[in-house]
């Protein structure tokens, strides 16, 4: 780690001010992505602005038929939340399957989606459920928020404050774990929305979260889960590495999509 400053402002306004004053300052929330990066000396921010404990970012509540989760809520809190478990049990299960216990007690939903690791779990739920991302400046649709691997629509100094998930009929998240890191080698969030439309969002392909539109249309036509194997899934969405070729990842995506849909039925 390089020498750096650290502050824990008491308000969101103060945090924003610190970011504005210093181009090289960086937000830290749970630190479960950022700290390993700093420890490996792969980044050299001038200071860390810690927002993990800001009250403004730490609520889970219902909004109409949907729910709002503050950006500072940890994976463990989301997994255990009665509100999330009642309204979006698949999301609670997703959060409960991230990393290990230590990571779940520090890592946050805000940090996860701001980071948009192509193998991270949350982006699949945000995209599949058509969630909206609230920042200090604006409200962004999921489609507009994610912009390819490790990229989002966030401007420098912009802070995610909450994520709004609309109600959905039924959903299921399945993760095929990378045997080493236990991140998703492939993850699929399948949902039937309140409108009865289907959504399939896939992570782990390597290029960032994406929707499998062909499968969604196939399901919306009322075609069965079994026919999924022949529905095209563009190989260009996948890249290979030592843990699995693009071809294998695509195959696994199909298998676990079918399994997720079977569990939902």
């Amino acid at each position: 780690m390089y020498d750096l400053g650290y502050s824990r402002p008491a308000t969101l306004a103060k945090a924003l001010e610190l970011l504005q004053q210093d181009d090289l300052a960086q937000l830290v929330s749970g630190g479960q992505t950022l700290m390993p990066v700093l420890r490996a000396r792969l980044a050299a921010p001038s200071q860390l602005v810690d927002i993990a404990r800001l009250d403004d970012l730490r609520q889970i509540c219902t909004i109409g038929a949907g729910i709002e989760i503050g950006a500072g809520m940890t994976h463990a809190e989301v997994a255990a939340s009665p509100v999330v478990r009642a309204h979006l049990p698949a999301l609670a299960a997703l959060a409960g399957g991230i990393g290990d216990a230590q990571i779940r007690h520090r890592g946050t939903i805000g940090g996860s989606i701001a980071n948009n690791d192509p193998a991270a779990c949350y982006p699949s739920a945000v995209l599949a459920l058509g969630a909206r991302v609230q920042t200090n400046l604006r409200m962004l649709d999921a489609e507009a928020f994610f912009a390819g691997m490790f990229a989002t629509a966030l401007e420098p100094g912009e802070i995610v404050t909450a994520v709004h998930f609309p109600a959905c009929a039924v959903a299921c998240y399945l993760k095929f774990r990378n045997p080493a890191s236990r991140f998703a080698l492939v993850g699929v969030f399948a949902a039937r929305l309140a409108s009865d439309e289907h959504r399939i969002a896939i992570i782990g392909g390597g290029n960032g979260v994406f929707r499998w539109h062909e499968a969604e249309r196939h399901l919306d036509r009322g075609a069965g889960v079994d026919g999924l194997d022949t529905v095209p899934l563009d190989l260009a969405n996948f890249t290979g590495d030592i843990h699995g070729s693009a071809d294998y990842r695509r195959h696994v995506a199909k298998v676990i999509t079918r399994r997720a849909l079977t569990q939902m039925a």
Partner: protein
Amino acid sequence: MNETVANGKFGQSVKRVEDARLITGRGRFVDDLVFPGQTYAAFVRSPYAHATIAGIDLASAQDMPGVIRILTGRELADAGLPPLPSGWNLSSIDGTPARVGLHHALAVDAIRFVGEPVALVIAETRDQARDAADTVLVEYQELPTVVDLAAAIADDAPQLHDGIAQNRAFEWEIGSSAAVEAAFAGATRRVTLSLRNNRLIPNAIEPRAINVQWSAFDEAMTIYLTHQNPIGMRGFFAIMLGLPSENNLRVVSPDVGGGFGSKAPAYAEEFAVAFAAKMLDRPVKWTAERSESFLTDAHGRDHLTTAELAMDDNGRFLGLRVHTLANLGAYISTSNALVVSYMYATMLSGQYAIPAIHARVEGVYTNTCPVDAYRGAGRPEAAYLIERLANLAAREIGVDQAEIRRRNFIREFPYQTPLIYCYDSGDYEGCLDAALGLADYAGFEARKAESQARGKLRGIGLSAYVEACGIGPSKLLASLGGGGAMWESCEIRVQPGGSIEVLTGAHNHGQGHQTVYAQIVSERFGVPMDSINVVQGDTDRIQAGTGTYGSRASVGLSAAVHSCDKIVAKGRAIVAHMLEVNLADVVFADGIYSSAASNRTVAFVEMAQAAHGAASFPTDQIEPGLVATSFFDPPNFTYPAGVHVCEVEIDPETGVVEVVAFNAADDFGNVANPLIVEGQVHGGVTQGIAQALWENAIYDPDNAQLMTASYMDYGMPRADSLPEFGLCFWPSPTPVNPLGMKGCGEAGAIGAPPAVINAVCDALGVDHVDMPASPEKIWQLCRAREVS
């Protein structure tokens, strides 16, 4: 932790006395030590795997805050630090000595693997040292690289060392090729196998660390080092560092957080740091970061082997022919010439009576981290090969995998193999039956049908391993190219107050020595375990020693037994005077000396007081004091053996292999502490399963970069991926040491990999699949299976 620990007994599951301290964070490791005037070292490491060093520019680094000194390889060499020593002299078939590529502590003009240290920065703080190391400018001229064994021996392969053509360090053989030719000529059946034994990264929980103090006034050095053999390292270091004698050096290893072999070599970084401390006249400390551990801790395994087994029509093994390319990495690490030759090929007979065996091993340099002993060290590679061949043989003959083994088991002991070793004892078929019983082998078909109903493929795999532990005898090892010194010593000091110190040159790094040595002494003296203090790891305290590796606790414990015997015997002489009875009438049992000729008794502690008081016996006949030292040089290796049975379930859609059951019956001879031994088996089996399914060090074939250089990419085993293990002991006590112990530390890592792969092959109905059986590889095989 103040309650009195009852007397220990050999064979009891006494809880480990060291654990409370270690698991509550009160262990003391090298990195915890800070000395007055402490400085910190950081290494500049090569980002390239093969390059020449065109120049090193230290100017800006030297101006960084806190920098005390920056040393290069050239400077160290000029100041007199010699290249690293080789621990074993191996000769090739033609009688020529192994071609050793010079290994400098810091690279002098060439780089041969990624992460090789190029310069050493010493600064006032750790961060300052690292910051400055980042700014050292090294100009490299990249050279083409080679990581693949077969490619490395090609004529046009990039050559690592001057004068060592085709990167071949040695070509060594064992056994009789003529006998094998004859056996094959007379055989009606044969099976052939080519396999790769995957490269592993050891991953001790505590990284390597060293802290060195130099005293210029009396030319004395103290090295605090995390190591498996601190006492034995003294000689190495004293010579390397040019000290006037071994007496000018003290080596101390406090608590050591795991090793698995990776803390047994003499490493480049440690020599550089120690030498620097002497040049600077200030204490220098270095603790590896985890990424440095991945890149530079000696790796394990990495063989490419072809083998043929000749049989008769009934599947009786007649002859075995083996050829192995062993990846040495960029240099020959301390013990690796031994590991790939005598530690490996001597075990190729397995549990079977094979009349003719011949093995040829070629040691090959590649642009990878040096390889050395890793849990099992050669023996897992042998067991994997012979146990895979046994299953191929069963397929070829059309008999069950248990049956092929029964037909070939060695049944008479001692048994002289064609490969030097003489197995002392064993009951291989008894072990097999015990393991099959534990595993409910007979019920497998029903379980397989049940899996099939759920769309899963189930397979069962056996492995019947034998290995060599308790390494000695010194004379034999010296005749094979080593330096001898394969004994262990133990001194027992009984203090005037009755407390006892047990000093041994073995060094605990997870084995529970604190407990087991105390158990044995407690039982022999009839005193509570907590009156016994086991002292290890300090050359100022320990008389002599050769370290902990190769499951050789039986060697040190045998020395302890002999020292106990000497003390008990001296006690009898003293008590004879105290009771005024004949020596022959004094008996000692359960901590009490007594005699039929007297109604007085003397407790062990009273005897100890009397020994020190020296008033109740004639000191011209009996020396005062109560200290005994013994050295035990084992007359033979011990040969632990066992049968492991693994059951896997494969998801044919994804290729994921799940180990659903694992059972083992092991012959470790007499077991000193079943709780500790089971723990050792759990750890070993876990590492073995991990080698078979997850662990794999991968170098990029194009540029020799390590692609599995962190836990994001290197697959470590996790508890939740393992079934409950079913274990039992099937002991045939060994006659080669007074305790009848054989050793257990590596067994799991030896027996498990072939059991897992045999189960995978059984499930898929294929001849072979290389480790690790990763999901994509298995999925491909499942697909091929569906098509056919």
